[in-house]
């Protein structure tokens, strides 16, 4: 199976409360925050690796994993990290976040899919900076491919994937014939969430919990793996940016911090001050 994984670099989500707004209120300022791979995209990469290996022999790639990002030159650090964990090739489309919206990103990825012809495109369900949650769905529509969003489990079948999706109030299971687009939720990296056909044949096999880390020799070897660079204009046709952010602001801070001494005082306050019980 050939899998294309779309990655986005985002400002460190563990310090998202330190994101600043420019004095004019017209831009988000993430200066001082480290760039990280969007966590959901990292999970998508881990899922792609699990789908292209026998879990018992993860060093041998059974198929191909290609990673793609749309980012300035510095985004190549993230691509090299992906190559070190097991991806075979990388593509970077040169652009800055402010020049993109979900519609343009989907058009760009469509062009990459048409050139690469993968069996599967895997992405995170959303990037944790824009929190927009649209690229996978749009890409599937542009390609006229089936999709499964919010995937918590993926089991490979002959020419299809059985996908368990986390939906409101339960789990929805879809079978999508390949080629398809799948966007992943966080539980996709649990030990038995993703099973390739080869891994499924190993009774009782469990992957490690979470995403894998690259050993040092792999990090060195990744520097020699192919990394192509493309211009945004060459992959979006004549499409223009259609989303414009006119203002940013921080949410109002809560006036919290008050303490109560015991449950009796808590119940009293809830009943007579806040009047919520």
């Amino acid at each position, binding site marked *: 199976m050939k899998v294309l994984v779309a990655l986005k670099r985002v*400002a460190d*989500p563990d310090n*998202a*409360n330190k*994101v600043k*707004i420019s004095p004019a209120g017209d831009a*988000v300022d993430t200066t001082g925050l480290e760039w990280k791979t969007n966590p959901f995209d990292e999970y998508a990469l881990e899922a792609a690796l699990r789908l292209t290996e026998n879990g018992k022999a993860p060093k041998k790639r059974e198929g191909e994993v290609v990673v793609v990002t749309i980012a300035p030159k510095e985004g190549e650090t993230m691509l090299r990290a992906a190559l070190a964990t097991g991806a075979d090739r990388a593509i970077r489309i040169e652009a800055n976040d402010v020049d993109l919206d*979900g*519609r343009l990103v*989907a058009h760009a990825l469509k062009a990459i899919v048409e050139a690469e012809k993968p069996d599967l495109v895997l992405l995170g369900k959303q990037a*944790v*900076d824009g*929190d927009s*949650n*649209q*690229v996978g*769905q*749009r*890409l*599937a*529509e*542009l390609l*006229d*491919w*089936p*999709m*499964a969003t919010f995937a918590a489990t993926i089991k490979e079948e002959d020419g299809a994937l059985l996908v368990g999706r*986390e*939906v*409101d*109030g*339960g789990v*929805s*299971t*879809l*079978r999508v014939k390949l080629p*398809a687009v799948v966007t992943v*939720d*966080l539980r996709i990296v649990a030990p038995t969430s993703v099973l390739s056909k080869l891994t499924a044949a190993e009774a009782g096999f469990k992957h490690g919990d979470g995403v894998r880390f690259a050993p040092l020799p792999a990090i060195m070897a990744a520097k020699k793996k192919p990394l192509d660079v493309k211009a945004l204009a060459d992959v979006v046709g004549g499409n223009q940016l*259609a989303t*414009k*952010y*006119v203002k*940013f*602001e*921080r*949410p109002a801070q*809560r006036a*919290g*911090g*008050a*303490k109560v001494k*015991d*449950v009796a005082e808590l*119940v009293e*306050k*809830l009943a007579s001050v*806040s009047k*919520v*019980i």
Partner: protein
Amino acid sequence: MSDALVIAELSEDGKLKKSTLHAITFAQRALPALGGTFSILLLGVATQAAAAEAAGYGAAKVLTCEDAAFAHYTAETFAPTVAAVGKGFGLVVATATTFGKDLLPRVAAKLDAAYAGDCSGVAVDGGKLVYKRPMFAGNVFGYCTLSTPIQVATARQSEFEAAPASGAASPVESVAKVAPSAAAGRVEFVSLEAVKSARPELGDASVIVSGGRALKDKFMEVLEPLADALGAALGASRAAVDAGYAPGDFQVGQTGKIVAPKLYFAVGISGAIQHIAGMKGSKVIVAINKDPDAPIFQLADYGLVADLFTAVPALVAELKKRA
């Protein structure tokens, strides 16, 4: 001048989901920029009862499309018809449930429309719609405009109240199904395993009791009596879910459900950024934690520094005394 189209969500047994009423409120707030009216579109196998209910909220029209192919929702079967009907409108909106978040971006792509997802507000400025969106796990609000002729959006349920009944009945019209494209033939609905619970749903609950990893395998044993005493829904932090102490659909946070109840109890939850993103819109927040430095206390209206294994049963006893 243009109109707004609200995409209704139906349950598997064909009932109108209450979540739809929040998208109606979004559409009503957007109308001053559009200058027109709003209609509601329902897709299902038998939509008569749901359409009759949807007709009670002041829509210009309730549009229904009935087909056996709509027995189980998939974006691939729904999107072609939704997009074909949506072509006649300036704004297509649904509530940002997993249904809306799955379907509407696909519809937007079909219409080549820009999309504003999970909006917490919509305003009219200089005749244009300005969408307010939470970004960076709720640490920033971005205000955006979209420049495509048709605009598509989803509304965060907790930020738009349910539309009140209008007292009148909108006319109901049926529309033709649009033949789906190749993608629909390559996706198969297998099952929907709904979690059965007598408790209110997290998205609708006015009181929520959430627990963290500190509860360990006593999660249900400790929290259920408190939830019962308050008529509350149960929630959990990501840490508690990841550790297997609570099921996945309990999760409150950036990657789980975003909630804004009247009263939120955070029990044994330290207050990680991603959890706070999902509950900081709650009206009153109570935190119970034995670590006085836990970040959740900075947010809480009432913080109780105590061992939850003794404090929660004591709280249940105190609540029962007043009942």
